[in-house]
């Protein structure tokens, strides 16, 4: 009988949604917003992770040169970098270019730089090592070797940044999981309250249904279906919005730390399914909680 009744319950749930569409849309919107925040976190993590993994295969160095370095010394530094296995991209950044880059990065706040008596920024070489260069291509070895060269003031290695970013990422991951958990609770709470409001609006109908012999399951099922539909639609809506956001971001050229522009990727299909299922599951739990304490007629 239950299987036969599913289309009937679905029909009743959809009819109920239609008659309480304002409250329902409000609940749906809030659920979608919660899932969108979760999805945005996922999108951020997936992209940072992907970008970070790609970065893991390349090693970038900034070789800062001493002020007043001679052409001969500069060429020598250049030659010693070029001689290293795996050194692919090399760009010389003059003191003036470094200052211009800094001004651009600071934007409106760059005015104070105009009052500087002299340019304190050093000229540098930007170097990227690619591939597996063997035991000689460890960040420590390269740094040590280059720092010994004449005219080199300091060598900054992306590995240092990577370690720092890794630490930040683990903290962010923890914060993300905590926020995710709180958002799940929010979805449960939203569904509970939406269904409670509809229960209240239809208390007369429920009373009559019970008086003519409706079982608890008969009365409760449409409300559970309503909650599940809210979660499902909220999930789908959030995925849609997330995809829109992704398309917008991927059309932009975003550069970080002077590295190659970030290539945006969308969250994997499994995450999309998980996001929709979280919406559906949490909303179903919320509805279950709402109908759990039912009218005893």
């Amino acid at each position, binding site marked *: *009988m239950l299987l*036969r*009744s599913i289309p*009937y319950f679905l029909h009743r749930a959809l009819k109920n949604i239609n*008659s309480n569409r304002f409250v329902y849309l409000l609940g749906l919107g809030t659920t979608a917003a919660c899932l969108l925040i979760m999805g945005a976190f996922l999108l951020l993590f997936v992209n940072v992770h992907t970008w970070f993994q790609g970065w893991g295969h390349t090693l970038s160095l900034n070789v800062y040169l001493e002020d007043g370095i001679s052409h001969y010394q500069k060429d020598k530094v250049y030659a010693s970098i070029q001689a290293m296995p795996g050194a692919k991209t090399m760009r010389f950044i003059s003191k003036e270019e470094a200052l211009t880059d800094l001004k651009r990065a600071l934007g409106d706040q760059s005015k104070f730089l105009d009052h500087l008596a002299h340019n304190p920024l050093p000229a540098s070489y930007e170097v990227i090592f690619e591939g597996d260069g063997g035991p000689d291509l460890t960040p420590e070895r390269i740094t040590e070797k280059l720092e010994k060269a004449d005219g080199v003031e300091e060598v900054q290695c992306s590995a240092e940044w990577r370690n720092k970013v890794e630490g930040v990422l683990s903290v962010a991951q923890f914060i993300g999981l905590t926020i995710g958990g709180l958002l799940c609770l929010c979805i449960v709470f939203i569904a509970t309250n939406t269904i409670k409001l509809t229960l209240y609006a239809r208390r*007369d*109908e429920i*009373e*009559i*249904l*019970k*008086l*003519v*012999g*409706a*079982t*608890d399951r*008969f009365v409760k099922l449409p409300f559970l279906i309503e909650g599940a539909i809210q979660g499902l639609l909220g999930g789908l809506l959030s995925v849609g919005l997330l995809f829109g956001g992704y398309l917008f971001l991927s059309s932009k050229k975003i550069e970080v730390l002077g590295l190659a522009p970030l290539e945006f990727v969308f969250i994997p299909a499994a995450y999309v399914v998980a996001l929709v299922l979280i919406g559906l599951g949490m909303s179903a739990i919320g509805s279950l909680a709402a109908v759990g304490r039912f009218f005893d*007629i």
Partner: protein
Amino acid sequence: MIQLYNVSKKFGANMALRDIDLKIGKGEFVYVTGPSGAGKTTLLRLIFGSEKPDSGDMLINAINLKRIGRSKLDHLRRRIGFVFQDFKLLPTKTVFENVSIALEVMGQRAKVIRKRTHQALRMVGLSEKEMSYPLSLSGGEQQRVAIARAIVKSPMILLADEPTGNLDPELTREIVTLFLKIHERGTTVILATHSRALLEAVPCRTIQLKQGRVIEDRCY
């Protein structure tokens, strides 16, 4: 069919029913009468299972209502029709939907629901108004919708609480005739009323209550 043994029920300090001993057989037509507050509605609600007795035992078709579980009670209610004093119709649903709801909860097929709802509405003379909404109907018509909903599932027992309370004598006669028609089909009918006119128009077994006690149980 319906047996009550020393049944008492109180609400707070108010004793609604005291030591009621009663037997109503299958297919009987019974009036429960008495002044307001005598316990008529409480007695019907006990038989319907929406109240449980504080003491004593109540059997309906050998099922003890004092120990009945939620699920069994729901199923028992499907075999009892109740016409409420305030009709309890849903204003946002049509006459057809208000009646068919009693069959929907039983999981009947749509075709069966349509057929039996049309039959019930024909029986109460409301075939023409099946698409109307309750608030557009007169008091008598609303009462007949409530009766149609109670009889559409062919109940073994039909309970009616003051079914002619707000009706004029002509409509009262119409409604009573309807109850007699239902009774002729073998349904046990129990009407709670304080209308003398009704008791005199169609004399039947009459149980008179006063302050929660049976003071007279007479067959005509």
